[in-house]
C-alpha cells in the first residue's frame, strides 16, 4: 500500500505568458520502508515537488494522497494537522527555534503532539547522530553541521510516517553525510517509514532504494 501517492499532479505559478510550470503532470508512489532520492539540478522543480508532497502547498491539478487520505481539498488547518501527525521535514535552512535548547526543541513537539519517541529512543538517536553532549545548548552555540544533525533528530523524534528531506547533507562533510544517510536508511527500515531525500549530491543515491530524476518539471524513475 502506498503511503504517499501523487496522481496527475501539476503545479504552475503565474498567469498567461508569464506562466511557469514547475511540475508537469507527475505520477509518484512511495511505499513503506522505502528510501527514495529525487535528484536534479537547482530550479528543476525538486523543492516544488517536496512541498506539494508534504502538503505545504496545493497542486494546480491532480491529487495528493497521504495514507489513503486525499489532502488536496483539505483546509490549511487540516493539512497543518496532517503535517504534524504524518510528516517530518528536514529543511535546507535549519528548522530550529533559536531560543530553545536542543532538548527543548524535542519537548516542544511533546507539547503539540503525542506518539513521539520515548526517552530511551531519543538518547539512542542523540548518540547515533553524535549530538548527545549538545543537549543543553542553544542553536546559536552549534556549528552548521551540528544544527543540521539536531534538525534531523527533531524530524525523526516525532516518528513521522513520511520523512521529507531537502538537501539534508548540504552543510555536512562527506563522512558525516554518509553517516546521516546510513542513519536515514536504518530508521526507514527499522520503523518501516518512507523517506524522500531531495538532493543534487549524486553520491548519496547508493543508499536509496529508488532514484527519481527531476528535469524541467518532469519526474522520471532512473
Amino acid at each position: 500500500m502506498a503511503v504517499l501517492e501523487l496522481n496527475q499532479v501539476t503545479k504552475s505559478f503565474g498567469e498567461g505568458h508569464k506562466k511557469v510550470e514547475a511540475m508537469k503532470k507527475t505520477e509518484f508512489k512511495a511505499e513503506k520502508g522505502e528510501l527514495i532520492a529525487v535528484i536534479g539540478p537547482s530550479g528543476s522543480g525538486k523543492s516544488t515537488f517536496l512541498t506539494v508532497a508534504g502538503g505545504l502547498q496545493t497542486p494546480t491539478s491532480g491529487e495528493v494522497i497521504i495514507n489513503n487520505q486525499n489532502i488536496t481539498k483539505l483546509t490549511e488547518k487540516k493539512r497543518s494537522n496532517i503535517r504534524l501527525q504524518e510528516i517530518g521535514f528536514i529543511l535546507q535552512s535549519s528548522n530550529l527555534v533559536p531560543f530553545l535548547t536542543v532538548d527543548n526543541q524535542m519537548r516542544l513537539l511533546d507539547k503539540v503532539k503525542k506518539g513521539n519517541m520515548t526517552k530511551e529512543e531519543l538518547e539512542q538517536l542523540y548518540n547515533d547522530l553524535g549530538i548527545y553532549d549538545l543537549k543543553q545548548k542553544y542553536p546559536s552555540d552549534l556549528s552548521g553541521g551540528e544544527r543540521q544533525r539536531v534538525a534531523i533528530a527533531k524530524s525523526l523524534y516525532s516518528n513521522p510516517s513520511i520523512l521529507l528531506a531537502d538537501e539534508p547533507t548540504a552543510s555536512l562533510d562527506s563522512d558525516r553525510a554518509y553517516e546521516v544517510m546510513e542513519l536515514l536508511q536504518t530508521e526507514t527500515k527499522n520503523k518501516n517509514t518512507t523517506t524522500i531525500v531531495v538532493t543534487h549530491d549524486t553520491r548519496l543515491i547508493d543508499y536509496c532504494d529508488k532514484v527519481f530524476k527531476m528535469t524541467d518539471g518532469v519526474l522520471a524513475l532512473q
Partner: protein
Amino acid sequence: MFLAWNEIKKNKLRFVLITGVLMLVSYLVFFLSGLANGLESLNREAVDKWDATGIVLTEESDKSMPQSSMTIEVADSIDANEIAIIGQLNAVATSAENKANVAIFGIEEDSFIMPEVTEGESFSNENEVIASDTLLEEGFKLGDELKLSSTDEVLKIVGFTESARFNAAPVLYAHLSTFQRVKFGEAAEENENQINAAVIRTDDLSKVTIDDDFELIETETFIENLPGYTEQSLTLTFMIYFLFVISSVIVAIFLYVLTVQKISMFGVMKAQGISNRYLANSVVAQTFILAAIGVVVGFGLTWLTGAFLPAAVPVAFDLVTMVIYGLVLIAVAIVGAVFSVWTIVKIDPLKAIGG
C-alpha cells in the same frame, strides 16, 4: 506557555526592558488613580459621611449649598423617611498657633448627619464644635479657641471626627444655633429659622415631592456639582485612560517588531504543523507574563511611594480601583498583542522556509 517562558529566559534583556516600561506605566496609572481618589475624598468626604439619598436646595442656588437658603418649615414639610437640616458657611479659623480654611456645618444633635466623635466629646454648650481630624493633623488641639474671619464669636474644639472635609475644607460641626450666631451675629434670633439645605434619607427619591422653588438632587449629583470636583476628576480619569491606550500601543509595537524578526521561525513551525492557535496562545501568554510582572512591580512601587509621601499630597489608594486598573492594564496589553497574532496567522509557511 512553554515557548513564551523559554523565550523570555533566553532573551532576558529585551523582555526586562519592555516589562520595565509596563512597570512605569502601571506605576503612573496607580499613582494617578491614588491622586484622583485623594482629590475626590478631599471634596466629598463630609458628604459621603452623611450616607444620604439626596439633598434639597433652592432652585436658584444652582446645586450649590452656600447659595441655597431656606427655612426650617420648608424642610419640615418634606415627606421623606429621614430629614436632617443643615446650615453651612465657609470661614477662616485661627487658633493661637494655626490658621485654616474651614466649612462650618450647623446641624441638630439628634439628626442622622451628626458625626461620630472619635476623640473628645460632642458639642453641648454654645459655640462648641466637633472638628475634622484633618485639623488635628494640622496642629489644632482639643480645647483650642478659634477666632473666625467673619464674626466676633469664638468657637471651641471639644471633639474630633474622622474623614470630614467638604470641598477641600475641614468641617467644624456645631449646633444650628451656634452656626446662626456665627452667620448672622446680632440678628441671629430673627434668623433662627434660616438654614441652607435639607439632607434626606429615603427608600425612593422619586416619591418625595417638593415645591417648585426647590430642587431635589441625588447625593452623587450634588457632589459632582461641588466647585472643581468634576473638572479635577475628569482630567485625571482622562490621563489614566490615555495611559491605557499608550501601554496598549507600546506592547503592540514591541511585540510586532519581535514577531516580524521571527517570521521565518514561525513559518518553519507552521510547516511542521504546529497550529496557529498554539503559536497565538504563546504570544498572548508571553504578553500576559510581561504585563502581569510589570503591573505587580508597579503596584509594589506605588505602595512604597505612598508610604513615604508627605501628608500634604492628597493621595489615597483605593485597593479595589487599583486592582481593576491593574487588570485593565493587563487586558489592554493583550489587546496590543493582537497585531502580532494576526501577523502570525498570515505567515505562509512556504514563503517563510524559502520553498
